[in-house]
């Protein structure tokens, strides 16, 4: 009987193009767009700035070696990995930057030293320092070239004294990424994975839940269902099943979206090199899963779909109409967004086991752990259990509402 009620609601959902788009197409389009497109876009912007020859204004004269270093392209394996800048004379460096005539401007109030030991002088660099474009472009290039110029002068002086380059750096640092391979691939956008999964569970279940509750009331079909010889518990269970199936379908498509973007990212990073590709890789947001991880992810997604569906039905049945239900349900997005904001700072938080007992939030943290390859079975089970208990309580609330005359006939 439960399946018959669910099948009726599912058939109705399947014939709704908007719902199908929200359940299937949106995860497949939005997830690659966010998890792959964003890093690619950022990598391409920054890489583009490296390849572009910006105009840099100059007040007065610069040592020839410094001028040459600034204007020169940086080559690697016969390819230009960083273009130099074009120096143009300006009179007011601040105004030139503000007007956009140049992207940065340099001014040496006093002559700059041409060899180490001649004392030091200040080089003023004008740029919109908070701009990512300036940092990745002209401003960053000037800073790098001046650092190299200083190092060249120092090394020349050390060479004159019979000392090598290692005199400057008796100890060097070699960074080795000790995070698991999964965590390396997940990158800085890893928090997007649990956020988007739960967001799609919510949006996927929303249309079915509202249609099966407030929508039935509005159309006058709920009364006909309630006068059939079906128990109220079966009606609630059927609607819960239908909503959970659509929510879970959406979650599965969101996982597919992540896997597709992971695959595309791997192909892209293999064929590209340079700073842009490095940034794309570091931003990450890609999902790679083991069999155990996949099963754990499905368990978490199913339990999250169940609790979200129960919540949607408990709210939906209270509303008089489809529109009223949408008004009540829209703020639920915050239930997903706010914990996701917290997840960005998960590295700074010391999470106790109790966190996993928080319905939905425990799931988000667990999914993040799975993505990073750092999940513990006990924490995953606790998160699933918390969701199931929450779902049971909300289902009881929904069942109570289906039995209340003032709720059923509140239209």
């Amino acid at each position, binding site marked *: 009987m439960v399946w*018959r009620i669910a*099948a009726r609601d599912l*058939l109705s959902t399947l014939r709704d193009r908007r719902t199908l788009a929200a359940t299937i197409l949106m995860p497949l389009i939005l997830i690659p767009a966010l998890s792959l497109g964003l890093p690619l876009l950022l990598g391409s912007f920054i890489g583009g700035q490296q390849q572009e020859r910006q105009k840099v204004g100059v007040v007065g004269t610069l040592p020839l070696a410094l001028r040459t270093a600034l204007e020169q392209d940086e080559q690697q394996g016969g390819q230009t990995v960083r273009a130099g800048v074009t120096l143009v004379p300006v009179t007011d460096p601040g105004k030139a930057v503000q007007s956009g005539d140049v992207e940065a401007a340099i001014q040496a109030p006093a002559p700059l030293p041409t060899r180490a030991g001649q004392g030091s002088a200040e080089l003023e660099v004008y740029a919109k320092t908070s701009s990512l474009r300036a940092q990745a472009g002209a401003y960053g290039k000037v800073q790098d070239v001046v650092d190299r110029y200083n190092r060249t002068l120092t090394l020349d002086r050390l060479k004159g004294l019979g000392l090598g380059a290692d005199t400057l750096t008796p100890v060097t640092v070699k960074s080795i990424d000790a995070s698991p391979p999964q965590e390396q691939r997940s990158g800085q956008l890893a928090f997007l994975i649990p956020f988007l999964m739960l967001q799609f569970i919510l949006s996927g279940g929303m249309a079915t839940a509202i249609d099966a509750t407030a929508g039935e009331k509005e159309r*006058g*079909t709920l009364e006909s269902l*309630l*006068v059939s*010889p079906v128990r109220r518990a079966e009606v609630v269970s059927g609607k819960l099943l239908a909503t959970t199936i659509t929510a879970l379908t959406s979650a599965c498509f969101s996982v597919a979206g992540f896997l597709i973007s992971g695959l595309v990212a791997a192909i892209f990073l293999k064929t590209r090199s340079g700073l842009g590709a490095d940034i794309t890789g570091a931003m990450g947001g890609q999902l790679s899963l083991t069999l155990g991880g996949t099963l754990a992810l499905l368990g978490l997604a199913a339990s999250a779909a169940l609790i979200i569906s129960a919540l949607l039905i408990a709210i939906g049945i209270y509303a008089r109409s489809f529109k009223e239900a949408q008004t009540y349900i829209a703020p639920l997005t915050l239930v997903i967004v706010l914990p996701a904001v917290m997840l960005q700072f998960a590295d700074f938080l010391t999470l106790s086991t109790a966190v996993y007992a928080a319905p939905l939030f425990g799931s988000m943290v667990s999914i993040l752990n799975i993505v990073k390859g750092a999940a513990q079975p006990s924490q995953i089970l606790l998160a699933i259990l918390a969701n199931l208990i929450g779902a049971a309580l909300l289902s009881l609330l929904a069942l109570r509402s289906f039995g209340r005359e003032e709720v059923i006939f509140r239209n």
Partner: protein
Amino acid sequence: MTQTQTMLDIHNVTKTYGKFTALKGVSLSAPEGEVFGLLGPNGAGKTTLLRILATLLRPTSGTAAVAGYDVLRRPEEVRRRVGVVNGGMGLPARLTGREVLRSFAGLYGMNRAQTEARIAELDAGLELGRTLDVRAGDYSTGMKQKVVIARAVIQDPPVLILDEAASGLDIFARRTLLDFVLATRAPGRLTLYSTHVMSEAEEVCDRVAILHEGQLLTVGRIPDILAQTGEGNLERAFFSLVRGGEQRAV
């Protein structure tokens, strides 16, 4: 001699919504083989009474039994034996009439052969035709109401409750509905027909009960009510009873 079964038995039913009393100690009964009319203006308490009989509302006090089953103690048995249609009932817009009927037949435990045979029967009786294979969202009011009626009687219930079922129907759809109601007058069956259109009641009802402001004013055969009030038609008799009731209340 065969004994007539009582299909409807209501004793002193009262229903309150907060401080408002919708039904005030209503008692009536109806045997099998009748089309029983429930008449009254909007707000008389007809829908409340019918929803109690359909187990959708609980009476505040009193008892009611449908087809021999108490609405509070055996609600599922009652629901198995009643079909309900009201003017506000709709259909899932994205399902065809046939899919709706099959879905409800499943809820009543009917197998595929029984379902298809019953759909064919209803198709002939209600002149559903191609309506059955069109999505409900594309139905006219008349088409929709025919399928709603077919859905309500898919399990061939002994008790049929029609609450303002003809409201909004065009002349053809109304005729089909009234003919269908007349065809339900048979042994082992009872049709409760609620309306505020007196001419409909005169045409299809064997007996009527007149409700006004939650109170039962009279119950009886239409000729008896006309004789009791001295009026020539049911509408005039209704006004006479309502005014008499109001004067008694004053």
